[in-house]
């Protein structure tokens, strides 16, 4: 049995196909998770770039818990959506572009947090973030915007 067949015969895939409500509900969950992940990350990036500098960077610690919650939500809903048509996604270049951008986006969150800690800016108020932190934040926003663009285009770009 190859990978595609294995996925198609999984109980998750069969459940997604069987239930009328499963697909739309999982899709809606994916949109909610996206808004949490991208929304909170954009807010943090803007703060690092100097927006609303009165807000301490430590204030974002619990916001990041929401970010991770959204990320887990979207990993799970994403896997469920993938099982509906594994062959379609497996050979869809835009899908892999999106996955690449999401992984890079998450890596940049990690890089940003590491840089803020290293430069001792994670607890201070009103202090300008380092040039490196600002660069990471700018690129992070671009990556997430790219992920949204790619995610939406999966539905529009036909393969084969």
């Amino acid at each position: 049995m190859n990978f595609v067949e294995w996925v198609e015969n999984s109980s998750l895939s069969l459940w997604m196909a069987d239930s009328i409500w499963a697909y739309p509900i999982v899709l809606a969950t994916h949109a909610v998770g996206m808004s949490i992940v991208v929304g909170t990350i954009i807010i943090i990036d803007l703060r690092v770039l100097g927006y609303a500098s009165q807000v301490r960077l430590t204030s974002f610690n619990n916001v990041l818990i929401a970010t991770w919650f959204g990320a887990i939500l979207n990993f799970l809903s994403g896997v469920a959506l993938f099982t509906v048509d594994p062959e379609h996604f497996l050979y869809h270049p835009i899908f892999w572009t999106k996955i690449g951008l999401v992984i890079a986006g998450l890596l940049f969150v990690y890089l940003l947090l590491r840089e803020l800690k290293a430069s001792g800016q994670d607890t201070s108020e009103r202090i300008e973030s380092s040039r490196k932190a600002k660069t990471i934040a700018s690129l992070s926003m671009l990556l997430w915007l790219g992920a949204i663009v790619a995610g939406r285009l999966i539905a529009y770009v036909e393969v084969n």
Partner: protein
Amino acid sequence: MVDVLFWMETSALGQLMRDSVWLFPAAEILHFVGLSLLMGSVIIVDLRLLGCIEQVTLQAVYKFLPLALIGFSINLLTGVLFCFTDPFRYYPNFAFRIKFFLIVLAGLNALWFKLAVYPDSLKMSAHENAGPVAKLVALSSLLIWIAVIVMGRMIPYLEDGI
């Protein structure tokens, strides 16, 4: 109402949206960016009101509110574009109607926030916790906006009601 829908459908804007291959997906992408901006700002303000964020004044966190308005404006604009593209599809749609009602509810909740929470909260210190009314408004805001997103995504699947 049928006259209005007919006018929207036959308008130059509606025609333009249907004729272009990329205008509709471009508007959809903007709609997703707008809702992320709105949700991000709403999350940080509501989490602070709920007491989940410490050591920051509400006044400082409110700096993110204009971003929520920008996000909402982007989505109002792109949402209108969708409606002009196919008004006879959206108007009777069950999910669309609930979504519309929820957005009005979110607006009333925002008004409640502005009148009952905002003025007093400006004077609060970084360690002060908001009152029960503020917490209720914040929780409602989070839940209503999540429901708005869910209903928006349900539009293609509730074409004929339930």
